[in-house]
């Protein structure tokens, strides 16, 4: 199942409820075909088992697929207890990162099916935090939800006040990719949302309007808000023609991980774009404003404007939910439509380092 999505088309139409549901539906239905190989050191049968073919939901997590994968290999395993982990070309995979994000980040040129290796022994506990199956993944999800709540509302009371059964049902809906149940339950989380740039109505009395980090001006329009973002930045030192030429990743030290909210600013007559959001997190990669046509730029400092494009860093690729994003898209649309179920927007970025 290839996830192809015409983002530009959808954004051009005024955001109606129908279109928004369509975008979110695409996100929830997005999946990565995986071809999972048992690590050769653990093959105790002859002939060795063929790889398992699994369709992994983008918004899901690798440990949740184990019950689908294990039947392929259980007869081949050496005796002992399982401690399951995955690797991609030798790189141990962080199980708490959504599968789609791992794929977007680690495969510059998308590989279909995505070839992963599964291990049932020898958990690398010096580099990976432990995973006790579904419980660990659920705990990670709920904690991310609480952290998102802190960012959006200033506290996590909304999550704490959810009944135990609602929390359980919410988690189950995410595990099963059940968007209908999730949509029915998510108003109970009472997470504020950003006003779509297209919406003319100022929903001052809306119970969904944000508190905490939110500034409201005289007219009652939401001016600023904090948005939960997780940014994964991969940098290359040399420029490249094709994505296939991007070198492989050996360690996670090559990724800069920013778990930091974006301050969403609404200025009169100016749209806060995806580019604005990313540049607020990566100031070293701010493009020279003079190069952009027809835009009012802010004042640049003299040292920055003296630096030529070659020596400054460059944003090469921005991927969200597998889509290569046009940076001029309004950030509010991106957040409202492409965020993950725990209310975080995961952004994978490939940059060329500034020359020093």
């Amino acid at each position, binding site marked *: 199942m290839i996830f192809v999505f015409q983002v530009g088309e959808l954004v051009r139409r005024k955001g109606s409820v129908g279109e928004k549901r369509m975008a979110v539906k695409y996100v929830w239905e997005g999946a990565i075909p995986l071809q999972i190989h048992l690590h050769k050191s653990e093959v105790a049968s002859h002939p060795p088992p063929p790889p398992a073919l699994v369709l992994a939901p983008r918004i899901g997590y690798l440990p949740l697929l184990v019950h689908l994968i294990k039947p392929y290999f259980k007869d081949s395993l050496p005796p002992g207890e399982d401690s399951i982990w995955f690797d991609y070309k030798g790189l141990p995979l*962080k199980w708490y990162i959504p599968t789609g994000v791992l794929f977007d980040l680690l495969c510059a040129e998308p590989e279909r099916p995505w070839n992963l290796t599964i291990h049932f022994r020898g958990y690398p*506990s*010096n*580099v*990976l*935090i*432990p995973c006790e199956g579904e419980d660990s993944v659920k*705990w990670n999800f709920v*904690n991310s939800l*609480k*952290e998102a709540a*802190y*960012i959006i509302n*200033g506290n*996590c009371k909304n999550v704490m006040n959810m009944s135990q059964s609602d929390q359980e049902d919410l988690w189950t809906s995410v595990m099963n990719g059940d968007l209908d149940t999730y949509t029915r339950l998510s108003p109970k989380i009472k997470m504020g949302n950003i006003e779509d740039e297209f919406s003319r109505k100022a929903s001052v009395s809306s119970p969904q309007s944000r508190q905490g980090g939110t500034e409201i001006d005289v007219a009652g329009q939401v001016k600023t808000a904090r948005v*939960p973002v997780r940014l994964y*930045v991969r*940098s290359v030192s040399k420029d490249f023609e094709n994505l296939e030429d991007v070198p492989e990743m050996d*360690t*996670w*030290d090559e990724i*800069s*991980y*920013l*778990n*930091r*909210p974006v301050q969403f600013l609404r200025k009169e007559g100016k749209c806060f774009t995806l580019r604005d959001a990313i540049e607020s997190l*990566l*100031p*070293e*990669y701010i493009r020279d404003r003079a190069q952009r046509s027809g835009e009012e730029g802010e004042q640049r400092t003299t040292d920055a404007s003296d630096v030529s494009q070659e020596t400054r*860093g460059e944003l090469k690729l921005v991927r969200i939910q597998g889509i290569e994003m046009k940076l001029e898209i309004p950030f509010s649309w991106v957040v409202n439509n492409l965020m993950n179920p725990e209310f975080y927007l995961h952004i994978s970025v490939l*940059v060329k*380092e*500034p020359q020093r």
Partner: protein
Amino acid sequence: MDSAGEVLNDGKITLEGFTVAARAFADKWKRHNLSFPSWSWVPLINRTLLKKEECYLSLEKIIILSSLEGSAEEESLGVTADWWEKEESIDHTVLVQNVEDEAHYYDYHIVYSASYMVPMLYFRGYSSDGKPLSLDVIKRDLPSSSVSLLLESKWTFITQEEHPYLNRPWFKLHPCGTEEWIKLLSESSSSDGCQMPVELYLVSWFSVVGQVVGLRTPLEMLI
């Protein structure tokens, strides 16, 4: 910079405030904790992508010795008697023999959380050969009050998570609710209802948080 803008009314602190508070904390610690190693300010130097003022406080290689009975005595090289938690005196000849086997080393990092807008304590333990200590072993080094809290809430008190910058599993004290008790501290300590000065923010925070991992804050630092 106006310190009132750095420490917020609800007990949270901005990144700028954290930077000021961290330096003040490290300075005071150095002045009042002569027997203890000092905190260093670690910039994220290899990260060209992060703003230059991003740093964290680091206190490393603190030794906790396990006595023969299995209960922990906290000691650092040259530490004074005020720092011992237990009253029994230690047999020094036994200590010398056992240092190699029983010494547990601890690193502590104080990192700013942009999400929660409060500091967070990360720590890890390892033996003299560098092997990480499991939570069970670490529990034996923690004060007993912390251990019972840990037993009550597996998922929300001390958890094993990835260090935000070092790509390794560390232990973290959950930040939920930090701003609430900081606010209480701030209200109870000032008679005229004034905001807590930013220089004292981390000191106050650590006076509570440090106790969880058995690190005491000298009273002189709180002035």
